[in-house]
């Protein structure tokens, strides 16, 4: 196990930011850390990177406890903090050299690592600029390069794609995918597509508590209690006939010809609708089951507690 979080609690004054959470991340796994703002994602990450101490419970990274061996852990972890703080007055190469130095890289090894990171993160054209001259997307790449320079075993990325335009998001995502082949990665986000695009597994956290910890497919199928099917007929038909089909819970007209059908998930409703159409000689123009998106799952998981 690369990361083991056990009964972790963090209290800020009166407020419990994290309440007794436990999860594990295996070697080589990409874990998505999902939750609404203020759920405790960043706090968990800050504890994992030894920036904040836990109030109770334990966090182990590569088998080392964060309270006992912070220096060793810090040398094995690459961390991209939220909002990607950078020394804006430094040049890109200078900055990477500084971070490399801190990690004990020197001379030729350091230079070759910097070159490697610059190629990997697509910074070749920007490498001789000051960081303050760079656009947000390129700054994010510098942040990633900085987190990767010492070839860490564990990579912790706190909202790596916030504030980027759609193209940059796709690029950063591809980059994370590329670098994560032989590393353990945790990254937090509140963008659902990101999780679907990148992760093996998701931990959903809300108000300091874990509400789900599962593979994405698993999560989706757990959440689906009704299937929603959109049907379009050439004819304008009433809903009564459809309601008579076994398994249909409700049917509503969206437009004159389009009908939205809710059905139980015990069996697929679509063949039955098709049979119904051919029996009554209706022309079926469209028959489509709505995908359950991570958005639905996320809303479903986090709404219950919003009392």
């Amino acid at each position: 196990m690369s990361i083991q979080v056990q009964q972790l609690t963090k209290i800020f004054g009166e407020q419990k930011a994290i309440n007794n959470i436990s999860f594990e991340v295996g070697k080589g796994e990409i874990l998505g850390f999902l939750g609404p703002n203020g759920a405790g994602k960043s706090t968990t990450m800050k504890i994992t990177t030894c920036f904040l101490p836990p109030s109770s419970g334990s966090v182990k990274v590569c088998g080392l406890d964060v309270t006992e061996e912070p220096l060793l852990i810090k040398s094995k972890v690459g961390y991209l903090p939220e909002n990607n703080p950078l020394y804006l007055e430094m040049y890109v190469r200078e900055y990477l050299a500084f971070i490399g130095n801190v990690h004990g890289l020197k001379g030729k090894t350091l230079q070759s690592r910097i070159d490697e990171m610059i190629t990997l993160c697509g910074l070749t054209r920007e490498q001789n600029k000051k960081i303050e001259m760079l656009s947000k997307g390129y700054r994010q790449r510098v942040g990633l390069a900085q987190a990767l320079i010492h070839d860490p075993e564990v990579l912790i990325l706190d909202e790596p794609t916030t504030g980027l335009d759609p193209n940059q998001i796709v690029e950063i995502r591809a980059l994370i995918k590329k670098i994560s082949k032989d590393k353990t990665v945790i990254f937090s986000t509140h963008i659902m597509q990101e999780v679907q695009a990148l992760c093996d597994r998701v931990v959903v956290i809300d108000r300091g508590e874990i509400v789900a910890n599962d593979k994405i497919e698993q999560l989706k199928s757990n959440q689906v209690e009704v299937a929603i099917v959109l049907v379009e007929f050439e004819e304008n038909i009433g809903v009564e006939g459809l309601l008579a089909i076994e398994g249909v819970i409700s049917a509503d007209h969206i437009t004159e010809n389009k009908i939205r059908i809710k059905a139980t998930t015990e069996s697929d409703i679509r063949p039955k609708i098709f049979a119904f159409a051919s029996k009554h000689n209706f022309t079926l123009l469209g028959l489509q089951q709505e995908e359950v998106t991570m958005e639905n799952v996320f809303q479903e998981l986090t709404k219950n507690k919003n009392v």
Partner: protein
Amino acid sequence: MFEILRKELNGFLNSLIAYIVISVFLTGIGLLMWVFPETSVLEYGYADMETLFALGPYVFMFLIPAITMRMFAEEKKAGTIELLLTKPLTDWQIILGKYFSGFLLVLFALIPTLVYYYTIYQLGNPVGNVDTAGVVGSYIGLALLGGVFTSIGVFSSLITTNQIVSFIIAVFLCFIFYTGFESLASINVWGAASLFLEQLGIVYHYRAMSKGLLDTRNLIYFLSVIGVMLMFTKFILGSRRW
């Protein structure tokens, strides 16, 4: 520690802070020593460097907090402190790296004033009629005083995210340490405690050193104030409550 030291020094040099600090210090001291009639050595007629050593601390009182005010305050404001504290560095490495970068800058500002010693040495009648031991003691005293002010500045920089607040706190603390204790001691209510109070201030020890007498008690005083200020800094950095 050396990574941080180098980074900070590069920061001083790239942002012109170093050049401004050094040139302001030298211009100010130069004017006071050679041009302004009230304090000029040439008007005074005695071959000593009293002007530098009497007024230097007051110039440092404003310049050093200006050097140190950004050290932690800016890192906290920009969030880069999180970056530093999640790298394999101990708190001491970060604090000492920053401290020595400031102290080195102070020493760099002080070194060119050695020319004044040469000038006064040549101006003496007969040539060389200058209290060399006193000058050496005073230089060591001034350097140590710079060290104390730097530690106060580093500490003040850590307790706030606002550079101006940090500057004002540092100037105030430097003032208290430099002459504040002595002035307090002169209030006639302390009785026997007033000597102790006076000894807490820098001036008492600084004056003793300017006589050319390097008493270990004075050295220990300066080093302990630096040590205590840096320990406070470490304590606050360790508490991580921002």
